Structure formats: structure tokens, C-alpha cells
């Protein structure tokens, strides 16, 4: 109850105080309102008095009401006068629900849904795990690689659930005091978190980042994968080594039993072909000229037309994830178009800091925030500011500018895995009861810090190669 009161009263107070009281120079009325919405978003996403996706919808609603050109008339009186600011186009705000980023994610959902429905994921796991034999260390590596691969295209949550379901019965056979149990139960969420980095649709923060990587900063699907996948592989190897170092398994042999065989009905084959085809098209955007958003519609269209995804399956789509991203996009659009983000950046003397400090600061803020709150919410809140910061800070230019800052912050969001609440995969692994918080924190913080360091390395490399 207290949370709700704070989360509502503080923004309301901010909304009601005279604009002049706010220490931002040249703040317009619209910017003032937007600031209140931003504060509300921060409070709601941090304190979570309501589900995070609901906060997103609330943001969209408030923007339509307070700063759109079709809001209530009395809120628009004075439009055109000095100090009022620019009203936003209502259709642009509503359009965030179907922005290309959302459609890209939707395409990913369709792929994942069909793969699950025709058990492509389980069967792939079965086939791909076989070469890793029965040595627990190798099995773990296999599990991590497959988990990471799946989570590039499927939701991290679903991937973790799938792999834990495969792993859980085997882990019960481990002795209670075998540290290997810990290593295995941790390797799945970590691999899922890391795997999410690999593609723009791997995890929502990436999608939010894609939104800001437009225009001159544009990054294609294949470009993202070109740095994302190698980076993910390196991080996976690192996490694998780290987990085994902390928790060497005593068991010398283990056998994962995954039952099933490939469905060979025509629909299943359509799923396989579409899955492979879509990924291929995403990778080869440069050849055919279709961008990833257009390609993302292929699985949607094909599966709907062939009834592979039917009416009932549509209900299973995680609208909450899509709307959570929508809220972020709407928030970013509001911040940018009202000019608030620029005003805010301007009010802080960033240029006084060395660019490196700025990068360190924002990435640490990002990883810390997303350790405690949703990764997506963190991205939603931080990335619009980063976009503005990158664009307005000339000193950053030589370091990669906005592009570097956005990618670094987005990746940082994904590396928060120190607590059960940090990411859904962590929560799920923790919920199995095979994991204690202490072990999770120890391993999670290690991976987070290593991740952060490697992100800087990646950025340096990307900068050196001229990508950013």
C-alpha cells in the first residue's frame, strides 16, 4: 500500500508544483508533465506496486492524456504560447503498440511457439546434447551452449524452463553435498541470460536498444549477431569455467534422458523450414534487402496461414512482454520528442566528466538497476537518456558515440544476474529449491563483473574495427 501511495503521490506532487521550481533550464510545460510521467515510470518499475507491463500501459495512457495533441482540451490550452512546448502526435504514441520492434519480437514469439508446439526445441536439445557424452563437465558445456542458442530466439524464461525440466530429474540423483548440483542448476539461467545477448530478439533490452539504433546509428540483425554471438560464446566459456571452478562436480558420469523423436508431419516440416529460413533471412539482410522487421513477419504469416498457430495459440502470446517494450518505446519517444531528455542531459554537466568515466558510470548504473528490477524496465528508463547523451556529448564521439553507449548499456542490462529477482531464469532456478541465495550471489556477481569488463573490451574492439 505504502508503495502505491509513494509511486502516485511523488509524481503528482511533481506535476503540481510550478514549472519554474524545477532546476532544469528552459523547461516547458509539456516537458514538465513528461518529467512527472518519467518519475512515475521510475517509481512504478522500481517499486512494482503493479505488474511492470501494466506500468508500461499506464505510461502510454498518461502520455496520450497529458502530452498528446488529442488529449483533453483544457490540458491543451495555451498550446503555441511560449513555455508550453510541443504536443506529441497521438497516433505516434498509439503506434508504439505496433512498432517494427514489437513486430520483430512477435516474429520471434511465433518461431518459439511453433518450435515448442512441434517439440523442435526438445528434439534439438536431445540431438545436440548427444555428442557431449556423459562426463558432467562436457554435459554442462553442452547444456549451456544449447540453452544459449535457444534463448537467442526463444524467451529466456521458456528456455530455462525447458532445460531445467530436462535437468531436474538428473540432478535429483546427485548426492546432496555434491557441488556439481549447484553448478548445473546455475549454468542454465546463466546460459539463458548470456544467450539473450546473441540476437536483437534474444531479450527485450536488445529490442529496446534496436529502437534507438536507428538512422546513422542503425545496426542490422546480422550485424548485431556478428558481435553478439562471439561475445556470448566467450562469456559462456567463461561462465562455464567459473561455475566448475567454484563447484567442481564429484559425480563422474551423468546421463540426461530426453525422450521423443522428430515430428515428420508436413506442418512440423513447415515449422523446421520456416525456423531455419527466417534465421537465414535475418542473417543475409544485405543480400536480399529485406530488413529484419520485414523478415520477422514471415513466420507470423506462414504459421497463421498454415494454421500451425491457431486461434488458441494466439492467446498464449506473451502480450505482457510486448507491452512492456511498448511502454519503453513510448517513454523514450516522449522523452525525445518533448525535448526533455536533451534538457535533462543539458542540466547535468556531463561534458565535465571524461568520456570513460561516463561509460563506466552508466554501465554500472545499468547493471545495478537491472540487478534489482526488470532488465527491460531498466533499458526502458536508461536507453532514451543514453541516446540523448550519446547524441549530445561530442567527447564521446571518438569512443563510439551513441551507438556504443546504447549497446554497452543494453548488454549491461543482460549481465545482471546476482539475485533471484534479477532475471526470470534466475528466479526459476532459485525456485527449484536446489539453490541457495549465497551461492547464486557469489556466482552471479562474478559473472556480472566479468561481463562488465568484457563489455568494455568488446566496445574497444568494435571501436577499433570501426563498427562504432
Amino acid at each position, binding site marked *: 500500500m505504502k508503495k502505491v501511495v509513494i509511486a502516485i503521490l511523488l509524481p503528482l506532487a511533481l506535476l503540481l508544483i510550478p514549472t519554474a521550481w524545477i532546476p532544469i533550464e528552459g523547461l516547458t510545460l509539456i516537458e514538465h508533465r513528461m518529467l512527472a510521467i518519467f518519475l512515475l515510470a521510475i517509481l512504478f518499475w522500481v517499486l512494482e506496486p503493479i505488474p511492470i507491463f501494466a506500468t508500461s500501459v499506464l505510461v502510454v495512457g498518461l502520455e496520450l492524456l497529458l502530452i498528446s495533441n488529442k488529449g483533453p482540451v483544457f490540458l491543451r490550452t495555451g498550446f503555441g504560447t511560449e513555455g508550453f512546448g510541443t504536443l506529441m502526435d497521438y497516433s505516434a504514441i498509439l503506434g508504439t503498440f505496433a512498432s517494427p520492434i514489437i513486430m520483430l519480437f512477435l516474429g520471434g*514469439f511465433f518461431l*518459439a*511457439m511453433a518450435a*515448442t508446439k512441434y517439440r523442435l*526445441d526438445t528434439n534439438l536439445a536431445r540431438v545436440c546434447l548427444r555428442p557431449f557424452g556423459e562426463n558432467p563437465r562436457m554435459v554442462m558445456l553442452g547444456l549451456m551452449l544449447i540453452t544459449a542458442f535457444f534463448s537467442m530466439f*526463444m*524467451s529466456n*524464461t*521458456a*528456455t530455462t*524452463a*525447458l532445460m*531445467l*525440466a530436462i535437468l*531436474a*530429474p538428473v540432478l535429483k540423483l546427485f548426492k546432496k553435498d555434491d557441488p556439481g548440483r549447484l553448478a548445473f542448476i546455475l549454468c542454465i539461467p546463466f546460459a539463458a541470460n548470456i544467450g539473450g545477448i546473441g540476437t536483437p530478439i534474444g531479450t527485450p533490452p536488445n529490442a529496446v536498444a534496436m529502437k534507438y539504433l536507428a538512422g546513422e546509428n542503425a545496426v542490422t540483425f546480422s550485424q548485431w549477431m556478428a558481435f553478439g554471438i562471439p561475445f556470448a560464446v566467450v562469456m559462456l566459456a567463461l561462465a562455464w569455467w567459473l561455475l566448475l571452478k567454484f563447484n567442481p562436480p564429484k559425480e563422474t558420469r551423468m546421463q540426461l534422458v530426453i525422450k521423443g523423436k522428430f515430428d515428420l508431419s508436413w506442418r512440423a516440416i513447415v515449422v523446421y523450414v520456416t525456423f531455419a529460413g527466417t534465421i537465414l533471412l535475418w542473417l543475409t539482410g544485405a543480400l536480399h534487402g529485406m530488413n529484419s522487421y520485414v523478415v520477422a513477419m514471415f513466420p507470423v504469416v506462414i504459421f497463421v496461414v498454415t494454421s500451425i498457430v491457431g486461434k488458441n495459440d494466439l492467446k*498464449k*502470446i*506473451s502480450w505482457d512482454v510486448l507491452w512492456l517494450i511498448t511502454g519503453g518505446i513510448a517513454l523514450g519517444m516522449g522523452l525525445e520528442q518533448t525535448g526533455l531528455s536533451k534538457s535533462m542531459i543539458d542540466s547535468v554537466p556531463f561534458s565535465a566528466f571524461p568520456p570513460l568515466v561516463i561509460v563506466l558510470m552508466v554501465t554500472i548504473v545499468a547493471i545495478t538497476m537491472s540487478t534489482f528490477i526488470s532488465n527491460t524496465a531498466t533499458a526502458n528508463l536508461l536507453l532514451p537518456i543514453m541516446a540523448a547523451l550519446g547524441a549530445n556529448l561530442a567527447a564521446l564521439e571518438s569512443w563510439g558515440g551513441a551507438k556504443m553507449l546504447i549497446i554497452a548499456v543494453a548488454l549491461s542490462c543482460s549481465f545482471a544476474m546476482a539475485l533471484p529477482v534479477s532475471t*526470470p531464469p534466475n*528466479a*526459476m532456478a532459485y*525456485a*527449484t*529449491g536446489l539453490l541457495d541465495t549465497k551461492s547464486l550471489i557469489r556466482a552471479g556477481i562474478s559473472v556480472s563483473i566479468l561481463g562488465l569488463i568484457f563489455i568494455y573490451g568488446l566496445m574497444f574492439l568494435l571501436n577499433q574495427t570501426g563498427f562504432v
Partner: protein
Amino acid sequence: MEDYIVLCIDDEREILDAVLQDIDSLSSHFILEAAESVAEARELVEEYSLAGKKLALVLCDHLMPEEKGVDYLVELNQNDETRNTRKVLLTGQAGLEQTVDAVNRGGLDYYIAKPWDSESLMQVVIDQLTTYILRNEENLMDYISVLDQERLLNAIHESG
């Protein structure tokens, strides 16, 4: 958590003590309750329902003074609020006729004969509660640590 009730009904206090002890590991996630008669059970379920707590599982003896277990199961099954409740008979004394009645009209889900052993009782309880949670609860994650992990994880996986 503690949104769902697991209720044991038996006229013999010693049996209630034993059953509650056997399923004590669920007390972190469920409200474990005991009633010494059907009348007490009915009152209890009503009270909890006012507080928004639902009856997830009932473990019920049949032969008790006054109202019989099977009759109560039938009553639960006819009530909208408790139709989904998993219904288990824990008894040594229901005849064929009553058992058939419990299955047909009471929506009986399981029959455990007295004397029982704690492991299989727990197994049945976990199994039934998992089914209940899968059908009635959106947030499956919270129950992974106490219920059937594999079934819950698979359900999460399938729902994306």
C-alpha cells in the same frame, strides 16, 4: 503465497496429527488445515473463502459420526467454488458403493487406504496439488520448489 488451503478431515485427532505431520513440508506454500468433522470443515472453508483463500486439496476420511466424507465430497463437487478442488479419500472404511458414488458424483481424484505410508501420501498430495496449481494458478514459478518440478517447468516452457 499461502493462497490455497490443504484440508484434512478426520474424526480422529491422532490421524489428523499424523497426516499434517506427513505433509508439513508444504506449510511454506499452503495453508494446512485440519477439521474434526464435516461441519467444521464446511465452516472453515467458508471463512477462508471470504478471505479469498481457495480450497486446493481435501484429504477426507469417509466414516465419521454425523456427516460422511463422501457426501461432503459430493457437496464440494456441486459447489462452483470448490468444484476444482482436488478430492482425495483417506480411509479404510468406504465400501464399494460409497467409492463409486465418490468417483461419479464427488469427482474423487484419489483413494488412499489406511494405513498409508508417508512417502506415497506425500507423492499423491504433491501430484494432486500440482494438477490443481497448473489449472488454477498463473504464477507457477512460486510452486516449483515444493510441487512437481518437471510438470511445472514443462508447463512454463509450453506457455512461452
